């Protein structure tokens, strides 16, 4: 199986320094925030790859780099065999057409002043192609009615809006859809509808998903392969069942333990220690070491390298 998307040592730094004059006067160094650090992964065609991690771990940034909305600072992004950094712009924009995105907030991702018809047809209209009947067809495909094309977004509920977003994403016949927390703003009952729809569409159209979420149960439900991010780094990656059966990285273990479970009535566990550190001044060595129960001296100083343990890739000195 060839990889449809391949990320190689992907890095993204944001310059969050104070303005020049402040730095000169207050003798401050230039500050950068490493939102994505040395991430390599492959997404085979037709599969669902999920990225999980807490807020600020760089999930969205990766998604946006792949989508071409944010430039990478280092590393390569290959889509369908085309290196988007070095290939000719025309070629790049061509492969990018194969790629669409669904966003987290269904209320903010639809232009409130546009009719649904226009919203859905936009990706096609931009290229000057005919959009006759397109919106109506797509609306029915995502389980709404063709007559809805004449309405404005505010006339729809959250779940319905997310369907409209999906319809828009499908308009240009993409191969890849990047879903940035597509259901985290939705109720469980609606979430199930949207997740089912996405699964159905995947089967019908043979889509590939890069699925971003912080909800482990959703990820478990949807993904074939899961990458766990912590402070921009991919700390663990494994096929779904492997990961859930045998989490290797202590951070992954912590996430699993902390996540509330429907069957854990009155569970009394020691909650995890600490919070995610400031991304501008990450701890040296393994970024997780201040919170890690297994941390030893080596974790304080040395950045762990990616190791393969069976099907799992993990970045931890102590995982086995």
């Amino acid at each position, binding site marked *: 199986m060839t990889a449809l998307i391949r990320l190689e040592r992907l890095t993204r730094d944001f310059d969050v320094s104070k303005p020049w004059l402040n730095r000169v006067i207050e003798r401050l160094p230039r500050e950068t925030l490493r939102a994505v650090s040395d991430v390599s992964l492959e997404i085979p065609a037709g599969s669902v790859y999920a990225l999980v991690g*807490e*807020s600020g771990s760089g999930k969205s940034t990766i998604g946006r780099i792949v989508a071409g909305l944010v430039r990478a600072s280092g590393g390569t992004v290959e889509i369908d065999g085309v290196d988007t950094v070095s290939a000719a712009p025309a070629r790049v924009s061509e492969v990018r057409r194969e790629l669409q995105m669904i966003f987290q907030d269904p209320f903010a991702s639809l232009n409130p002043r546009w009719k649904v018809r226009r919203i859905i047809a936009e990706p096609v209209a931009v290229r000057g192609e005919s959009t006759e009947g397109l919106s109506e067809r797509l609306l029915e495909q995502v389980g709404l009615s063709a007559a809805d094309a004449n309405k404005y977004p505010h006339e729809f*509920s*959250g*779940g*319905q809006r997310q369907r409209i977003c999906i319809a828009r994403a499908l308009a240009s016949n993409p191969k890849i859809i990047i879903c940035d927390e597509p259901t985290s703003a939705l*109720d*469980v*009952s*609606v*979430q*199930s*509808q949207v*997740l*089912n729809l996405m*699964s159905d569409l995947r089967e019908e159209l043979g889509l590939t998903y890069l699925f971003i979420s*912080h909800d*482990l*149960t*959703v990820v*478990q*439900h949807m993904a074939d392969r899961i990458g766990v991010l912590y402070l921009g780094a991919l700390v663990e990656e494994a096929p779904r069942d492997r990961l*859930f059966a045998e989490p290797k990285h202590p951070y992954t273990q*912590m*996430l699993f*333990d*902390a*996540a*509330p*479970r*429907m*069957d*854990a*009535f*009155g*569970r*009394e*566990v020691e*909650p*995890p220690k600490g*919070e*995610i550190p400031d991304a501008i001044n990450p701890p040296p060595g393994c970024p997780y070491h201040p919170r890690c129960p297994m941390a030893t001296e080596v974790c304080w100083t040395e950045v762990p390298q990616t190791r393969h343990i069976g099907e799992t890739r993990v970045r931890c000195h102590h995982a086995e």
Partner: protein
Amino acid sequence: MTGPVLSVRDLVVEIPTRRGVLRPVDRVSYDIAAGEILGVVGESGAGKSMTGNAVIGLLDRPARITAGEILLTGEPIHGLNGEALRRLRGRRMGMIFQDPLTSLNPLLTVGDQLTETILEHLPVSAAEARKRAIAALEEVGIPAARQRIGSYPHEFSGGMRQRVVIALALCAEPELIVADEPTTALDVSVQAQIIALLKRLCRERGVAVMLVTHDMGVIAEAADRVAVMYAGRLAELGPVREVVGNARHPYTAGLMASTPSASGGHRRLRQIPGAMPRLDAVPDGCPFHPRCERAEARCRQAPEPMLQTCDGRAACWFPVVADEEVPA
């Protein structure tokens, strides 16, 4: 055994609008005992927050309580005027909001906000209030509380801020806390910390907690009893194990089944068709009937039975029987 800290009886909240009177809370009744956590779940717009706000007397115009009673340790508080209610708020009942980022006044130090609350409600000196403020911060697990008391909210991280919010809600030692989605904006690891903190405080102080959320997992782990709301009404109310594990109301059952879970794998999720009706279009009969698989003619015509009148668990004409398998 004393009575419940909070008793809500047939509470009705109405909003007059130009399209008619809406009822975001419709004949809701429940009790919370001291040291107990009552979880309130339901879809967005089900009336969870509205109920919480009604209890604490913070309904925004034009919403207002039009029927029913709210008793705090047996005393009716629903009819109190603004000033009397204000004295109760903070002192005898506290509230925690969803977003710790916006719940704190950015221009005042956390110490200012704590001491002003303490001084408002307790007959103590300013120095004593400061001492108590530090103690409150320590209690919610803020390290170096003595130093941090002079900090401004923006100098804290999200989780720490929610701890400050909890300290503020608890600093005048109320008997009841209404926590409206206190962890929705937080990461799982922090959420676990905050839930643990709430549980600890509830247990140690014997505070009654109304925990509003739509995360079933949080409810399962934290609550003693659960109230499920649908379209402003109580659909089901019972001990957490019963409700989560053995839902009687088809709606609750549907909710539980549509939640993706570890055991489910890649199979299609069960889904409740449609969406909760808008308040201006609540169907006649049982409000859930258009989405209900078990609905019969009776459900379409007669309103659903009141919780008290049926078995006390589910407001449903045809509740799911205990041993009946939840259809997968």
